[in-house]
């Protein structure tokens, strides 16, 4: 690892520690070691709400459910919208209108429709992940060069062959980019959704609960975990993108 890359993180940690000692008030800024103590004991029950690990897993499970749902609707719909102008015309305006609404603006409606609990949270995550997945899928389908479709036609391919063997493989890189962005937004949405009234588990809930008890060490520990998981999610999907789609550059030029 390049030494320059860890200069700023180390400097930040040192600054944090010095500030914490100087302030001497853990309700505003706990010292580094207090936060580390929370992080290295993930199986310790915290504040009677389960362990850090349990709460993390609850959040991950929620994200996965909402994200998979968004992919299961967004990818097929995106392929159809990108390929069939009729379907594009049918959905276009609705999607363009709904897209700019931030997921959190849906919270009151979600609570009214689905009540307090899992379904509402799932809905918020779904909304967050859905649009980037849909839009990137559409862009992927439209980005498949026309010549590749024409080649298939002159080789005797039928409509269904073109969809399955040209359009879908050709748009996969873009679909995966959409999934990666969608996963990132879903992860942000779950934390926000768990801060809603009625939530009783998850990292977002734990943050708010620890805050109400002035346990800033737990708050910061949760934030660090959220950051790390978000990073791993992004890097993991990016890795697949780079590995599976070396040919992407060929398509672009």
């Amino acid at each position, binding site marked *: 690892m390049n030494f320059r890359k860890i200069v700023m993180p180390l400097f930040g940690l040192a600054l944090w520690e010095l500030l914490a000692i100087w302030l001497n008030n853990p309700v505003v800024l706990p010292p580094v070691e207090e936060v580390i103590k929370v992080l290295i004991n993930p199986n310790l029950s915290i504040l009677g709400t389960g362990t850090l690990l349990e709460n993390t897993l609850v959040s991950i499970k929620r994200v996965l459910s909402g994200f998979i749902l968004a992919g299961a609707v967004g990818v097929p719909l995106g392929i159809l919208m990108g390929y069939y102008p009729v379907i594009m015309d049918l959905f276009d305006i609705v999607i363009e209108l709904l897209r700019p609404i931030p997921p959190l603006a849906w919270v009151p409606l979600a609570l009214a429709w689905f009540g307090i609990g899992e379904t509402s949270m799932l809905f918020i995550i779904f909304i967050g992940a859905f649009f980037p997945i849909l839009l990137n899928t559409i862009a992927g389908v439209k980005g498949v*060069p026309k*010549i*590749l479709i*024409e*080649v*298939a*036609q*002159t*080789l*005797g*391919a*039928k409509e269904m*062959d073109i969809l399955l*063997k*040209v359009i879908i*493989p*050709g748009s*996969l890189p873009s679909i995966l980019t959409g999934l990666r962005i969608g996963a990132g937004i879903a992860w942000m949405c779950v934390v926000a959704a768990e801060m809603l009234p009625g939530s009783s588990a998850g990292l977002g809930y734990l943050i708010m609960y620890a805050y109400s008890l002035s346990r800033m060490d737990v708050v910061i520990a949760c934030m660090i975990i959220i950051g790390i998981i978000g990073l791993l999610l992004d890097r993991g999907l990016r890795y697949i993108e780079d590995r599976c*789609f*070396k*040919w*992407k*550059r*060929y*398509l672009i*030029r």
Partner: protein
Amino acid sequence: MDNILEIRNVSKKFVSKNKEILALDNVTFDVKYNEFLSIVGPSGCGKSTLLRLIAGLEKPTSGEILMEGRRIEGPGAERGMVFQQYSLYPWRNVLNNVAFGLEVRGIPKRERYEIARRFIKMTGLEGFEEAYPYELSGGMQQRVAIARTLANDPKVVLMDEPFAALDVQTRTILQHELLKIWEKEKKTVVFVTHSVEEAIYLSDRVIVMTARPGRIKDIIPIDLPRPRKRDSLEFLEYKRRIVNILKDEVLKSYNMYKCSTMG
């Protein structure tokens, strides 16, 4: 009947926003079975459009194109096309690119790979079966495109300036190999190029087109035994003749270009 293709009074008009462009104007000619026919003309004369019409990728505004007596209504496997460049499926390796046509036509895996391998060998791509297009040079990519079209066993092979983007050496080699394959496989080839030399080297007949709107200016049979020597007197005489016919047209298309960019 010895004509595989009949192009009858074909015109093609392109309409964009507030402009109409007549690309082809009343073009009529025949293509014989097993013939190697080239079409040359100044850029923008509609020669590629003509090829796309035969492929069925475009529809004529008026007139009709018949293949073996039947009117062409759309693209089909009996008319294979080799495009100018970058037409390979980048997510498929060479073997699966070449086998694509056989795959969509439902040929079983073992058989289609067998056929694909034969054409890979014929086009000098042996050893590159597993390579992906982005790993290949332009010349190799064009070999794959040719192998893919031929493996599908079309009756007519349409080639749209397939060697235009290649360097001179590669181009010469591929021309030579294309002729060998053509002689062996007994195909009908319609070959579009802007290189007069290439057309004379390859073809039984050369169609010379006018500047836009594209009309047939002349059809010249090349009566030379193959393999042809590019520096033989007869070859150069053909070249001089066709270049002369083309000269006025190239000038016209250049002036058209000048007017459209300066005006």
